[in-house]
C-alpha cells in the first residue's frame, strides 16, 4: 500500500486574539492518498481554510500529528515550512492573489524564482499553459484579465514548481458559472494528467461531485 501523502491525526489549531482563544480546529483526522482529488465542504467558520494553511505550511499546528509527504510538520522550523511552500504545495485562492504589478508570465516566473527552480520542463509548462487556455494572455497584467483568466494564471503559478499537493481554497468563489466550470474542468483535468494530489474547498456540492474522488465535510473544527 502506498503511504499517505497527507496524514493527519487529532490536529488542533487555536488562534489567540489578545486573551481570547479561538479554537479553529479541534481534533481533525484525515488521510489522503497520492493523486487523490478531495473536496472539502462545510459551513463558514468550520476551519476549512485553517486546515489548508496548516497543510500548506503557512502556520504551524498547535498540537496533533501532521505528516505531509513524509515530513512531520510538528517538528518543522519556519525555514522548513518555507521550503515546503516552495516545492511541496501550491496554493490557489478565492481572490486569485496575483501580484498586480507583474504580467501573467512574470507571476508564474516569480514562483519559480522563489523556489530557485532552474530545471523546469518547458514542454510540460507549455502544455499546462495551453490546457489552461492562457497562452495569449501571458503578457498581460492581472487588471487586464478576466476573473477566470486570473484564476487560471494562478493555477499555472501554483503548479510552476510541480508540487505534489495542490490546495485550492474556494477557487470558483469569485467566478461566474461559465468561468467556474472552466476552472473546475482544468483542476480535474490537471489532477488526471499530472497526478498531483488536489484538495479543494468549495461551497458548491455540484462542484465537489463533479471533480472529487471523495468529499469530506467539516463542522466546528472537525471532520464529520
Amino acid at each position, binding site marked *: 500500500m502506498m503511504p499517505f501523502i497527507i496524514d493527519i491525526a487529532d490536529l488542533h489549531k487555536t488562534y489567540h486574539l489578545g486573551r481570547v482563544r479561538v479554537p479553529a480546529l479541534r481534533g481533525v483526522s484525515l488521510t489522503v492518498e497520492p493523486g487523490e482529488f478531495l473536496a472539502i465542504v462545510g459551513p463558514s467558520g468550520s476551519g476549512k481554510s485553517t486546515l489548508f*494553511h496548516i497543510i*500548506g505550511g*503557512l*502556520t504551524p499546528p498547535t498540537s496533533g500529528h501532521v505528516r505531509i509527504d513524509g515530513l512531520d510538520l510538528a517538528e518543522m522550523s*519556519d*525555514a522548513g515550512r*518555507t*521550503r*515546503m*511552500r*516552495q*516545492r511541496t504545495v501550491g*496554493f490557489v*485562492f478565492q481572490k486569485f*492573489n*496575483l*501580484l*498586480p*504589478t*507583474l504580467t501573467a508570465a*512574470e507571476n508564474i*516566473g*516569480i*514562483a*519559480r*524564482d*522563489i*523556489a530557485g527552480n532552474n530545471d523546469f520542463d518547458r514542454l510540460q509548462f507549455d502544455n499546462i499553459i495551453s490546457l489552461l487556455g492562457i497562452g495569449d494572455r501571458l503578457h498581460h497584467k492581472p487588471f487586464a484579465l478576466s476573473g477566470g483568466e486570473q484564476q487560471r494564471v494562478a493555477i499555472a*503559478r501554483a503548479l510552476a514548481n510541480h508540487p505534489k499537493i495542490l490546495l485550492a481554497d474556494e477557487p470558483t468563489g469569485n467566478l461566474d458559472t461559465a468561468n467556474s466550470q472552466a476552472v473546475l474542468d482544468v483542476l480535474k483535468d490537471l489532477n488526471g494528467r499530472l497526478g498531483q494530489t488536489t484538495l479543494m474547498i468549495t461551497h458548491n456540492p455540484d462542484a465537489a461531485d463533479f471533480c472529487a474522488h471523495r468529499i469530506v465535510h467539516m463542522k466546528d473544527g472537525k471532520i464529520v
Partner: protein
Amino acid sequence: MVNRLVLQNLLHRPIRTLLSVVAVGVEITLILTVVGLSQGLLEEASRRNRGVGADIIVRPSTTQAAMGLSSAELSEKLVEKFASMPRVSMATGTTVYMLTNYLTTITGVDMDAFSRMSGGLKYLAGGPFEQPFDAVIDQVWAEQRKLQVGQSMELWNRQFRVAGIVEPGKLSRIFIPLTTMQDLLGWRGKLGQIYIKLKNPDETPAVIDELKALLPGYNIFSMAEFTSLFSINNIAGLSTFIRVIIGLAVTIGFLVVMLSMYTAILERTREIGILKSLGASQFYIIGIVIRETFLLALLGIGVGILFSFGAQGIIQHRFPILVVSLHRDWWFYAGLIAVGGAMLGALYPAVRAARQDPIAALAYE
C-alpha cells in the same frame, strides 16, 4: 524576475519614488557642495600661494597651521638678512589681514619686490599703486564687488582707490602697499611672513636647514610643504563642520527612505503575503526591499551629482570669490554614505515586511 518586481514596485508609485530619489539627490548635493566648497577654497588659496614664485616661506613661531590669522610678528630686518644669504636670490615680506566675512585676505606687499619674485601681476585694467591709498584687486574680487579702476573701496574706514585690476592666481585678491597696511594696523617694522626665492630651487632643503638653525622655533616651510597644509584636516573646525553637514544630509536621506519604504511595505502587505505563500523566505523579502532601496539610492546619487553641478554654477555665479571644486572621488564617498544611510532607513521596513504573518497578510484588504 525579482528585479522586474523591484522595478515595477518603483514604477507603480512614481511620485513616491521621485520624492525619495530627490531626497537622496539633495543629500548627495549637500555633501558634494559643502566638501567641494571647502576643498575649492583651500585649493584656490594653495594655488595662489604657489603663484608667488617663492621656494621657502618663513612665518613666526606662533602662527598656527596654514591659514594664519591677521598678525605681523616678524622683524622687517630679516628680509635683508635672508637676501644676503649666498644661496638666496631674493626675499620679500607681506602682511595679511583676513576679511572674515568673505573668507579672503588683504595683503600688504612691496609691489616691486613681489613683482620680481612672482614674475609680475598681469594687469587687465589700470596699473600698480601710485599712492599710499591705492589698491590692486584681482578680477574675481572686482566682479564680486562690482569694482572698476578709479572707483574707491573702503577698508578700515579709509577710502582706497582701485588702481589696477589683475588676473587672479597670485597670492591674494586684494593688494595694498605694505607700508600703508603696517601704518594703519600698527605693525610698523613688522611682517606676517617672508617669502624667499633661491638661486637654485634644488637647494631648498639645505637652505631650510640653515634657516632653522638660524631662527629656532620659527615656522619654516618649503612652498610645496606649506601649500600641502591647505587641507580640510588642518583648518580648525572645518572637518567637524563638514561632518555635521554630512550627518544632517544623511539624516534627511535616511528619514525619507525609511518613510517611503515603510509606506511601501504597508501598502504591499497582501503582496508580501502572496510571496510568502509561494515560499518566499524572510531573506527573499528583505532582499526585495533592499534592492528597491539600493535602486532608489543609485538614482538619487545620479540626480545628486547633476544637482551638484547646478549648485556649483549658482554659487560661483552669485559669489565669484567662492570656488566649488567637485572631485570625482567624492562622488564615490558621498554615494557610499548615501547608500549606507538609505540601507539603514530600509532596515526596519525590510525586517517588518519579512516578519509579516502570511495568513494575516493574505487577509489584508
